[in-house]
């Protein structure tokens, strides 16, 4: 559900700080698919992802006063809350490393499922991006961003020297970046 009008980011923040439920509704409609996508990628479980998304939006509503505009964009703040909440849940569920990698592998099939069509991004765009990334490039990004893996963990999983993890990550993101320009 897209709202017929849009808010600027500072209008959004002001509205949220004023506990404006209409603004909060707009925020939910605009950003919940992206945040839900993150929770789902981290947890690979719809029920857990639902719980995390609910927790995330309640945190946004209750703690909007803690958001500092000078330190970053609202979306970045919301993404961080979502990523942290989901990874905390993942850790509390004591996922094994194997399970994390299994999750990432399964995601290849998930990508062909129901995806929300956002402005300027379409289904084909994503497929194009993913096709052009090597499996290793995708896994290194996803293990770090979605599973919260450390450099040591990635070094072990991919069987690469610890000192090269950052370089591999840099290369993967540069490739991602070039592909996104084509979308």
């Amino acid at each position, binding site marked *: 559900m897209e709202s017929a009008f849009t808010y600027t980011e500072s209008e959004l923040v002001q509205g949220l700080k004023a506990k404006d439920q209409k603004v909060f509704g707009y925020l939910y409609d605009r950003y919940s698919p992206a945040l839900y996508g993150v929770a789902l990628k981290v947890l690979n479980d719809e029920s857990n992802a639902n719980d995390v998304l609910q927790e995330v939006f309640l945190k946004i509503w209750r703690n909007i006063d803690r958001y500092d505009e000078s330190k970053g964009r609202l979306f970045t703040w919301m993404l961080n809350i979502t990523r942290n909440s989901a990874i905390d849940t993942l850790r509390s569920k004591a996922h094994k490393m194997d399970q994390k990698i299994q999750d990432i592998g399964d995601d290849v099939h998930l990508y062909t499922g129901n995806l929300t069509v956002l402005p300027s991004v379409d289904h084909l765009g994503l497929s194009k991006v993913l096709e052009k990334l090597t499996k290793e490039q995708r896994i290194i990004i996803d293990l770090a961003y979605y599973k919260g893996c450390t450099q040591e963990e990635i070094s072990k999983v991919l069987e690469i020297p610890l000192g090269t993890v950052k370089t591999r990550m840099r290369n993967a*993101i540069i490739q*991602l970046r070039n592909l996104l320009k084509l979308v």
Partner: protein
Amino acid sequence: MDASRFISSGLIEAYVSGLATSNEVQELERGMKQYPEVAAAVDDCQLDMEQYVTLQAKTPPTDLKQRIFHIIINEEAARESGAFSEEQATDEFPETKTYVNSAWRWIAAAAIILLLGSLWYNYVFYGQANDYKGRYEALLSTHNTLATQSDGYKTRIQQMEQSIDLMKNPAMKAVKMPGTKPFPSALATVYWNQQSKEVFVMVNNLPEPAADKQYQLWAIVDGKPVDMGVFEMSNPHELFQKMKSIDNAEMFAITLEKKGGSAVPTLDQMYVAGKAS
């Protein structure tokens, strides 16, 4: 590290992907402050990462929005009515608040209990005090009655003792006065002290006079009646009644006269008479 080293080190990508250690995060944040081009590079990389994330967006179940709104609407309603204590609000000093509240609650409860207890004891003791007061007054009245009776007995005993003293006195002469012909059952006695010349009368048996009448004692001296005074019958415990003194007398007699006595005796109302010697 200069700006280009920051950009080529992979630190920015590690930071944006969440891979950077806390030391690396601090290092990069210093670089971002120092070099605007580093900050700009971080921003660009973050936008790319967010675009990648957004590509994988998925619409959440439709009822989730309703669930979330249900919670926040309830919270807002509770906050407005003052019943809801927010997370942040309870964060402030929860233990202290609870402690103070519960302490005052206990103190108030204890005060109410003490007050009720005190009221109950007041009621009980007031009732008991009233009871004791009533019993005390009853005892006091009994005591007063007994004291009065005791005084009465004491007076009577004193009178008796005086009477006995009078009779024991060897100078005392008893003059018996039997009833006259119209009043044969009447009897009275005069006790006459031969030394002090005092005269006492004792009623042995005389009818109760009418309210306007009184008995009067007479002495007969040289054949003529001499007034010795009137006396009352009202005090039966008074054995002797003191009359006027007289030196000599041949006879004594009692007549019934009008109240206060008469100058001359009414002879047909003579009840008793007796010779003195």
